[in-house]
């Protein structure tokens, strides 16, 4: 712990307090996440363990780097690379650069998915931007390594606003498509200058906000979901994307539409999304 000098408190994470700190010798700025350990409890919390073991396997420029794990008397400290701001704060300054930010998000996701890791909690607060403008996926406290035999997962993942319709209706089998829906919501939010796309108050409200109600032919298995709700007679379905994201180009709307497909089986993958024409103007290095 003596290696670092604490500078200021940045925030409260899922399982501990985050500080900005400076390495005493190298002067490198880092983020310290302090994990509280309660006496006679579960030891190292599962969420911290998940983050540690997953980040140990994921080294990529669009994923926040875990430098070190330190422990002292009943306290665990994770040392992360420092990022100046999260996407929430960045929205104002990134007008016109939505495509660059989105492609970085997709690149980080494609990497996670290629290593069989689901993030499961994507939201603007978990996307960090460093001083060079690089976007990093962070907070893997809910992330999960998935194996080949699909297992049942918890339906209580992903912050409500970014939760896909299948998970809202209780789907316990999901895959990379869960993160793609969230990426779509974040994309629209960026395009609208930080206004959340589906800011629902509860699960029903959330489902009602999600554009068109699922139909028999586009999503035949929806009725089999544990908490299936029939929204076919709800007013206001099938809102045009031109109204929802007016500032976005036609190509951008097309990509958004492919990310926000109700049926998880038909949602575009991160790998394919990166090759979408929306990113045609970016230099090829962005898509590498």
């Amino acid at each position, binding site marked *: 712990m003596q290696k670092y000098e604490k500078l200021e408190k940045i925030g409260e994470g899922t399982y501990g307090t985050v500080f900005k700190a400076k390495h005493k010798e190298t002067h490198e700025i880092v983020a310290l996440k302090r994990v509280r350990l309660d006496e006679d409890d*579960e030891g190292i919390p599962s969420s911290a363990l998940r983050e540690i073991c997953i980040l140990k*396997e994921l080294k990529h420029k669009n994923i926040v780097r875990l430098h070190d794990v330190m422990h002292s008397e009943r306290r665990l400290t994770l040392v992360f690379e420092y990022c100046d701001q999260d996407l929430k704060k960045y929205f104002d300054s990134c007008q016109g650069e939505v495509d660059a930010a989105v492609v970085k998000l997709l690149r980080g996701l494609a990497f996670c998915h290629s290593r069989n890791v689901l993030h499961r909690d994507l939201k603007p607060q978990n996307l960090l931007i460093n001083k060079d403008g690089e976007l990093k996926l962070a907070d893997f406290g809910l992330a999960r390594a998935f*194996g080949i035999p699909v297992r049942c997962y918890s339906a209580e993942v992903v912050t409500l606003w970014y939760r896909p319709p299948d998970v809202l209706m209780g789907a316990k089998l999901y895959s990379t498509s869960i993160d793609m829906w969230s990426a779509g919501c974040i994309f629209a939010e960026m395009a609208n200058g930080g206004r959340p796309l589906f800011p629902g108050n509860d699960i029903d409200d959330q489902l009602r906000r999600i554009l068109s109600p699922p139909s028999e032919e586009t999503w035949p298995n929806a009725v089999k979901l544990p908490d299936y709700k029939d929204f076919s007679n709800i007013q206001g379905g099938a809102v045009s994307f031109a109204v929802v994201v007016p500032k976005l180009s036609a190509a951008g709307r097309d990509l958004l539409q492919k990310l926000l497909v109700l049926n998880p089986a038909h949602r575009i993958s991160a790998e394919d999304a990166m090759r979408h024409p929306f990113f045609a103007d970016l230099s090829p290095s962005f898509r590498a």
Partner: protein
Amino acid sequence: MAANFWLSSHCNQWLLDREEIQLERQRDYQYLKEEDYKKIHIFFINFIQALGEHLKLRQQVIATATLYYKRFYSRNSLKSIDSLLMAPTCTYLAHKTEECGVISNTRFTAGCNAVVKNKFSFAFPGEQFPYRMTQVLECEFFLLEMMDCCLIVYHPYRPLTQYVADLGMEDAILPIAWRILNDSLRTDVSLIYPPYQIALAAIYMACVIQQKDSKQWFADLSVDMDKVLEITQEILQLYELWKSYDERTEICSILSRAPKPKVRPTSATPGQTPSPVPPES
């Protein structure tokens, strides 16, 4: 995660050299013959297996706990932390990393106690499990740190089922090969070889036992058969050792010769002793 073994910390940081492992053990070989050293680890891996079964854990979790245990002592002397504390700690951590939720502390310590009393009283006559949960939690830190936080591990069970399906001999081969893999946890193969090679060695041995011809299948795989045979040799050595060894009557005297941490609680005063000695750096 099967497809990504080659990019994992298991592959890149935790496949060790046999020489490297032997070198680390020289400290303990001052007190113990190599064979007795092996017997101590076999004993504590049996403990992990028994505790896992008592707590009704899946074999995958037991295998992960065993690999954590092997990793710890591949870099540390028996003197650094008592195996009787390290073995259950590995189970406790593996249970969390394999996403099985949390075991309540009461259930966990009760499990340790039951296993010590009912299964291993021949080694610890009249004793209880001497550690408290706070010591297990403290030990968990040392374990995490010593493994450099590499907690995701790969096992040969999944490649085994895939290979056997490809070979088309599920009924004849799978149960025997599976048992061979369980036995192989008591050797160093999981520290040295990638899981797929261990799976192949188990299939190779099972085919010999069942007198099934798999020569062509192995030839078509174009794998390094020398490695497969090395693994086979190491597992056969374990079977050889078991032939002339009775753990129940011999382990007490072996344990008494083992190097010990400076402090080891006695059951007269459970938990009243200082913390375990941290691993030597």
